[in-house]
Structure formats: structure tokens, C-alpha cells
């Protein structure tokens, strides 16, 4: 009997566990020192307070969102949020939805900015004018006596040659323009890219008939606000917006600028309009032919309006539009209260489990307790590191997952201890019972934990939001649970089995063979089993028992048990192999 082997193995396992813990601490220390990490995990919105908005893509039936579009939308929304001065915002995807999480409260401007999902288009101006007062229009103009015999023509008689061709303006369009009420222009006011559009500017001051789209807003690479500099490099104090187009935009814009600059004398035909959400943001006149793709918009801007327009132009082109599915604001007080409740519940739960296991397993219960504490340390470190490395945030659902995990983790120990007790009942010595009980328990633990892990993974992949947070902690603790039972609980038991206190079967050890009704009491002394051996069992059972005994045990039992084969009444079968 190689007594030293389990001890050696146990020591090796414990060293490995030590390496893991030290490694985790080292990673976290490094993260704190160099990577902006922290010793506490980041908290989710429900625990920390803040605002969470869930945006769902607006899709027509049959349409799907590609990952590319979603990622582009995320980066656009992120830029929008960041540019509004909110720091530490988190924008992520969850299924097909976009989740925007912002610490603190969200002001209405920022909210609108995030939501305004827009398509930015550049169209040439055909007609511009002061808006007609809809009410005045209705009441003062005399009712026409002769109604037109047919509806106004809606297709151009002469097909227009370019975007600025006034042939675009059909009588129908003119009619629409004449009756346009700027207060009623909504974000749904869109026209196909190759068709003209009738609309107003943002403030409802001017109304327009615009030509077809000539440059796509997505071709704007960058837009920034800046003070116009004189040729000597001095400041004029005037604000302007500097645009940078990509290659396609540069070419398209170059063509437009050439044509529009040629129409300089025929204002407003020299103007082009930036249309966002169906409304004109700005309609500057073309002051030159711009072929380098870097136009500058000047006008009556101050810093604020210049910056706002630059942002709109830069982040304007969202590939898909979104609706707000839910918006949640949690105050910091409420978050703190929830976290506190979670921690208190966790501590109470842990204490109750401690008390119960001590009651049930006596000193063996301390192994459970220490195992749980070690598991808690590793879990805490893992979560802290993951929240630094992956941006994981612990939510209330996650906390619940952790508390529930106490029970799941303790169950591995229960399965293991019960197996060891079963082996003791069969009359094994403690060291042997620990080894063979472990073999059987480990199989069960692996199989059952695999079920848990599978559930966690499926939930994590399929679910959204809070369910995901829960699945994450459930999966993490399952893995840690297996590590602990293999690298800590079992080695501890192997070592304890060597001590006199446990091997002598002290009643307080929790592994007292007498209390467990063991058949084999050591020193070749066998007690009669309490229950009768079922017929037909005896032969095979004794064969198996013999097979499973050590040489010393077998000799002893042969001596003592000659004439009776009732050495075992168990249902145990041979070892796995």
C-alpha cells in the first residue's frame, strides 16, 4: 500500500491551487498598477445607479440586421454619446438590440441624440423660399372656382439632365411645395434617393425643393468644428465646419461643386443641402470648385452650433434606425440598497450552509467551509479580473447567481463525502475509502457539472441582458467548483485521512466507521451485517469484496471469515475498470 502516493499527489494539487490563486492575484495587481484595474469588480447599472436604454432596430418584415450594420451603429451611437460629454458610457449589443448604459441620469438632449437614427443625404437645392403659414394659406386664399380637370402632373415632361435641372420640379411637386406646412414635417418625410424631396430646414424657417441625392452622408469621413484661420494663420474668430470626404465622396462632391459653382448666379441653384432625418440641417452655397474632398462650411456659427452641426454630419449616417425598447434609470441609492441586500443575503446563506454542514459532517464540515471560502476567493478574483479585462459588470442577477452557486458548490462536497462514507460502510480503511470514493464521486461530479455548464452556456448564448449576467456567474462558479473539489477538497481529505484524528475514526471527525455502521472494523474483526444478504448475492459479492481488498485485508478476512461468506452485503460492484 503506497501511503505516500496520495500524500504526494495531494501536495502537488494544493501547490497547483496555490499557483492559480497567486497567479490571479498577480494578474489583478498588474491590472491595478498598469492597466487601470481595480480590486473590486465593476458593478452593473442596477447596483451602481445609472441609465440603461435598450434600442431595438426598426425593421420591415423579412429584413434582418447584419452584424456589420449593428457594429457600425454601436460605434456611431458611442461617438454620439461621448461627444455629448458623458464619460464611461457603455454601448454593447445584446442579440439584435443595442444596450446603452450611462452612469447617472441622462438628459433629454443626449437621449434624443442617441435615438435620432438618421440617414444623412446631400441634395442640391432647386427651389427655396419662406414657409407659407398653413392657416393663412387656408383662410385667405380664395377658393378656386375652377378646379383643375386633372391632377397635377407628377412626372417631368422633359427628363432632367442633372441634379440641378429645374425640370425635376413637376406641377405636382410645386403643389406639394406650395402647401407645405413646416410644422408638420416629420422624420418620416423621406423620398427615394433618385427622386426630389420637398422639405423644410431644421428650424422651420425655409422650405425647399431638393434634387436627388448626389453624395451619401456615409461618405463623410470626418467633420469637425474650428475657427477659420486667415492665410497668415491668425484667427478670425469665426466658426466653421471642416468636412473630410472619403474617396467616393471626394469624387461625387467634386462633380457637384463644379456644377453648382457654375450656377453661382442663379441662387438658390448654387446651394446644396445636408438632409438629416428628412430635414435640412444646413444649405450652404458653393463658393468654389472643391476637388480635394475637404470642404469648409462657413456661416453664422458660434462654437456650439458649429460643434453640433459637425457632430450631426459626422455621426449622422446610421445604417439602421432604432426604437427605444426600454429605458431604465436606477438611482445610486436604490442601487446601493440592492447591492447591500444581495451581500447580506449571501452572508446569511453562507452561514446557514456552514452551520448545517458542521452539524451533518462534524469536523469534515470544516473542509466544506474552507473549500467554500477558497471558492469564494477565486470567484471574486476571477470576476474582478474579468470586469477589468472584458468589461464584465456584476448585476443583481449575477449576485443572485453567485448566492445560488453556494448551494451547487456545496453539493459536490456532499456527493463526495457521501461516497466516502459509503466506502467506509463497506468496510474500507479511511485512506482506501477516500481514494475509491473519490473515483466514483468524480465521475458523478463531472457529469452533473457538465449539465450545469451546458445550461449556463446555452443561456448565455441565447439570452439577453440580465439573464446573461446570471448565466455567466452560474457557468463561472461551476468551473471554479470543479477546480476546487479536484485541487482542494480531495487533497485536503487525502491529507486528513493520514492524521490520527480522522483515521482512528474519532466520532467528531464525521467519518467514524462505527457510526457509519461499517462492516469491516479493522484488525480482521468483522461484524455481522445488519441486514440479511439477499439470496444469490453472496457469492458474487464476496468475489467482488475479495477483488477490492488489499492483500493484507484479504488475508485477514480469509482467516477470520472462513465458513461465512457474509463479508459484504452491499450492492457495490467492482471498480469501474
Amino acid at each position, binding site marked *: 500500500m503506497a501511503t505516500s502516493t496520495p500524500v504526494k499527489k495531494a501536495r502537488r494539487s494544493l501547490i497547483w491551487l496555490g499557483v492559480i490563486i497567486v497567479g490571479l492575484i498577480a494578474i489583478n495587481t498588474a491590472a491595478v498598477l498598469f492597466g487601470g484595474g481595480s480590486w473590486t469588480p465593476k458593478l452593473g447599472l442596477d447596483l451602481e445607479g445609472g441609465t440603461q436604454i435598450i434600442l431595438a432596430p426598426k425593421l420591415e418584415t423579412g429584413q434582418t440586421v447584419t452584424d456589420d450594420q449593428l457594429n457600425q451603429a454601436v460605434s456611431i451611437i458611442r461617438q454620439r454619446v461621448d461627444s455629448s460629454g458623458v464619460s464611461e458610457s457603455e454601448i454593447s449589443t445584446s*442579440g439584435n438590440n443595442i444596450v446603452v448604459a450611462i452612469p447617472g*441620469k441622462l438628459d433629454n438632449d443626449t437621449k434624443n441624440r442617441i435615438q435620432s437614427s438618421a440617414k444623412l443625404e446631400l441634395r442640391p437645392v432647386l427651389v427655396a423660399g419662406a414657409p407659407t403659414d398653413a392657416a393663412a394659406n387656408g383662410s385667405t386664399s380664395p377658393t378656386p372656382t375652377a378646379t383643375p380637370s386633372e391632377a397635377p402632373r407628377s412626372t417631368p415632361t422633359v427628363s432632367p439632365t442633372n441634379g440641378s435641372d429645374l425640370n425635376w420640379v413637376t406641377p405636382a411637386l410645386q403643389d406639394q411645395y406650395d402647401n407645405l406646412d413646416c410644422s408638420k414635417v416629420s422624420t418620416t418625410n423621406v423620398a427615394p434617393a433618385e427622386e426630389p424631396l420637398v422639405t423644410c430646414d431644421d428650424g422651420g424657417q425655409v422650405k425647399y425643393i431638393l434634387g436627388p441625392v448626389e453624395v451619401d452622408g456615409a461618405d463623410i469621413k470626418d467633420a469637425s468644428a474650428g475657427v477659420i484661420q486667415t492665410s497668415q494663420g491668425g484667427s478670425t474668430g469665426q466658426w466653421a465646419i471642416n468636412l473630410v470626404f472619403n474617396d467616393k465622396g471626394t469624387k461625387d462632391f467634386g462633380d457637384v461643386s463644379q456644377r453648382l459653382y457654375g450656377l453661382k448666379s442663379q441662387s438658390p441653384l448654387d446651394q446644396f443641402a445636408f438632409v438629416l432625418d428628412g430635414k435640412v440641417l444646413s444649405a450652404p452655397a458653393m463658393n468654389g470648385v472643391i476637388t480635394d474632398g475637404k470642404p469648409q462650411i462657413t456661416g453664422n456659427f458660434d462654437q456650439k452650433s458649429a460643434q453640433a452641426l459637425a457632430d450631426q454630419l459626422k455621426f449622422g449616417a446610421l445604417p439602421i434606425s432604432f426604437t427605444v425598447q426600454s429605458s431604465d434609470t436606477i438611482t445610486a441609492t436604490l442601487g446601493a440598497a440592492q447591492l447591500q441586500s444581495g451581500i447580506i443575503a449571501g452572508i446569511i446563506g453562507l452561514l446557514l450552509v456552514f452551520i448545517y454542514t458542521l452539524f451533518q459532517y462534524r469536523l469534515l464540515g470544516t473542509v466544506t467551509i474552507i473549500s467554500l471560502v477558497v471558492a469564494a476567493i477565486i470567484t471574486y478574483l476571477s470576476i474582478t479580473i474579468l470586469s477589468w479585462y472584458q468589461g464584465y459588470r456584476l448585476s443583481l442577477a449575477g449576485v443572485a447567481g453567485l448566492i445560488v452557486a453556494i448551494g451547487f458548490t456545496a453539493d459536490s462536497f456532499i456527493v463526495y463525502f457521501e461516497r466516502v462514507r459509503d466506502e467506509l460502510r463497506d468496510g474500507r480503511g479511511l485512506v482506501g475509502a477516500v481514494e475509491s470514493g473519490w473515483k466514483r464521486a468524480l465521475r458523478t461530479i463531472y457529469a452533473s457539472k457538465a449539465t450545469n455548464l451546458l445550461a449556463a452556456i446555452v443561456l448565455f448564448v441565447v439570452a439577453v441582458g440580465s439573464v446573461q449576467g446570471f448565466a455567466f456567474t452560474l457557468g463561472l462558479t461551476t468551473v471554479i467548483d470543479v477546480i476546487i473539489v479536484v485541487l482542494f477538497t480531495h487533497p485536503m481529505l487525502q491529507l486528513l485521512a493520514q492524521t490520527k484524528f480522522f483515521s482512528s475514526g474519532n466520532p467528531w471527525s464525521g467519518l467514524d466507521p462505527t457510526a457509519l455502521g461499517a462492516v469491516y472494523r479493522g484488525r480482521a474483526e468483522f461484524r455481522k451485517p445488519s441486514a440479511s444478504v439477499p439470496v444469490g448475492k453472496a457469492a458474487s459479492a464476496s468475489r467482488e469484496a475479495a477483488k477490492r481488498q488489499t492483500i493484507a485485508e484479504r488475508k485477514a478476512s480469509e482467516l477470520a471469515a472462513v465458513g461465512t461468506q457474509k463479508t459484504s452485503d452491499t450492492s457495490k460492484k467492482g471498480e469501474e475498470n
Partner: protein
Amino acid sequence: MASRLTEFGNDLYTGKRSFDFVGKRRTWFIIVGALVLISILIPVLRGGFNLGIEFRGGSQFQITGVENAQPKPAEDAVSSTVPNAVAHVTIVGGGSGVRVQTDQLTTAETKDVADALAQAYDVTDADVASSFIGPVWGADITRQTIQGLVVFIVLAAIGMALYFRTWKMSIAAIIALMADLIVTTGVYGAVGFEVTPAAVIGILTILAYSLYDTVVVFDKIRENTKEDLTGTSRTFGESVNLAVNQTLVRSINTSVVAALPVASILFIGAFALGADTLRDISLALFIGILVGTWSTVFLAAPMYAMFRSSEKNVAKHDAEVLRLRRRAAGQPALDDVTV
């Protein structure tokens, strides 16, 4: 108590004391069937589940830092700001918090109501939390939950069939799982708590727990029945029954240990401020852990025994065992060992 349970465990292990889980399966099946039926009927009779705001859609406000809160100021604040909105006011956290749920409000209305509430309870803006939940949100979660459920059940069934080398164990485990889900959901509905995403999470966890528990017990059954067809004096059903009895102490300990932390969340969540997530999740879990543990014992294991008992070699073996046993009743046992 400890020693008594230990002794109890000894007796269960040796077979000195045994509960007839397999033999009386008809009784257990009828009881389980009745429970399932009741669990389906109760929510139906109550007119469906009490769905949370996440599934109905609407606006919710939570006010913290109030002393001795009354519902009246909130009702007034809402009705004066948005006259046609119906406010549903709950006092939480022993009077230190107020929760107000209304129909869906617009952004502007939400802000106005939040301001009015802050004024009504004399707290600052920072103490009023507001949420707006579109009705799609809950539907989205539900759809994804059901997807997850189906995927998980299929994968788990395949995994278990491979591990145990018999699909009959998978079927028995999945049927028990279904019963767990239905009973847990039914009891949850009967308690009358709102069905929130947190409750859905709890019920999903029951999936994992129920199968987890079944795998532990089935692993012992697999061990006990592995060689039984070649040389044992037990019928197949008796072997299964012994395995269930041998793991009974574990089942008791596990259900207690798993239920204790959950019970503490339930207790804290029921009284503490704003911990609705904890409360809902833990209620679903609490019911589910108890149901999940005992469905393995009373439903999954006996059902597996039943599935197998009709197999030809199992039936043959059982008949042989019974024949030997009858013969043995007449004469001393030891001569009769060879089968």
C-alpha cells in the same frame, strides 16, 4: 440529529430500511400528475399569470429615501400631471421607498411625473428612478427564453443518452424536468408574485438544477444496475430503488444546502428595499430546488425503472430472480447461490 441521519443513511445504504419509490410508482405518478394538473389549472383559473411591467410595457418610478411613505401623494402626483394615467402604487422597504407603475408615458410626461413625485415626497431628483419598458421587451425575453429552453433540452438529452448509454434515462430525466418546470411555474403563479425577467431567470436555473440532481442519482443507478443482469438477486426495479435510497441522504442534504442560501435571498428580498430581482429569482428557485430534488426520487427514477422493465432481458432476469426467491423461501439460502 446528525447521528440519527447518519444511522438513517446506514440503514438506507444496506437496505435495512428502504422506501419503496419504484414499487409504488403508480401512487407517485398519480400524485405528480395531480400536482402538474393543479399547477396548470391554478394560473388558468386565476386568469393567467400576473405579468410584470417588463412583459406588459409601461413606465415605472421608484422613489427612495422616503420616511413613512404613504401611497396617496404618489397617486395625486400622477393624476395631477397626467390625468388619464392609472397609477399603481406600492410601498416597499418598510415605508422607505415607493414604487409607482403607470401606463406607458412619453418622455416629457415621464420627466414631469418624476418631478412631481420628487416634490410630493420631498426628495431630490436623484432619489427618483424611472424606467420605461416597451411591450416588446418582455416578448423578446420570452422568445429567447423558449429558444434557450428547447436548445438546452435537446443538447442535455443527447448528452445524457451518450453518457448513460441509454436514451431511456434521458427521457425519464426530461419528463421529470418538464414536471418541475410546470409545477414551479404553477406554484409561483399561485403565490401571486409578478412574473418578471428575474423570475424567468429563476425558472431557467431550475432547468439546470433539476437535471443536475437527476444526473447525480442516475449515476448511482447506472452503477448499481451495471452488472445486475448477470448476477444479482435483485430485480431491476429493486436495484434502482436501492440506488435511490442510497442517495437519499445526499438528496436531503443537497436540497437543504441548496435551499438555505436561496431562502436567505427570499427572506431579504421580501423585506429589503428594491430587491425585487432577488425576491423573484429566489422564490422561483426555492420552489424549483425542492421540486427538482424530489421529482428525481419520486418521478425520474421510478419512470426509468418502468421504461426498462418491459425490455426482454430485464423482464427475463426479474422473472428468474423472483423464481429463485420463491424457491429460497422453502430452504436455506446459501446452497442456492449460483444463478
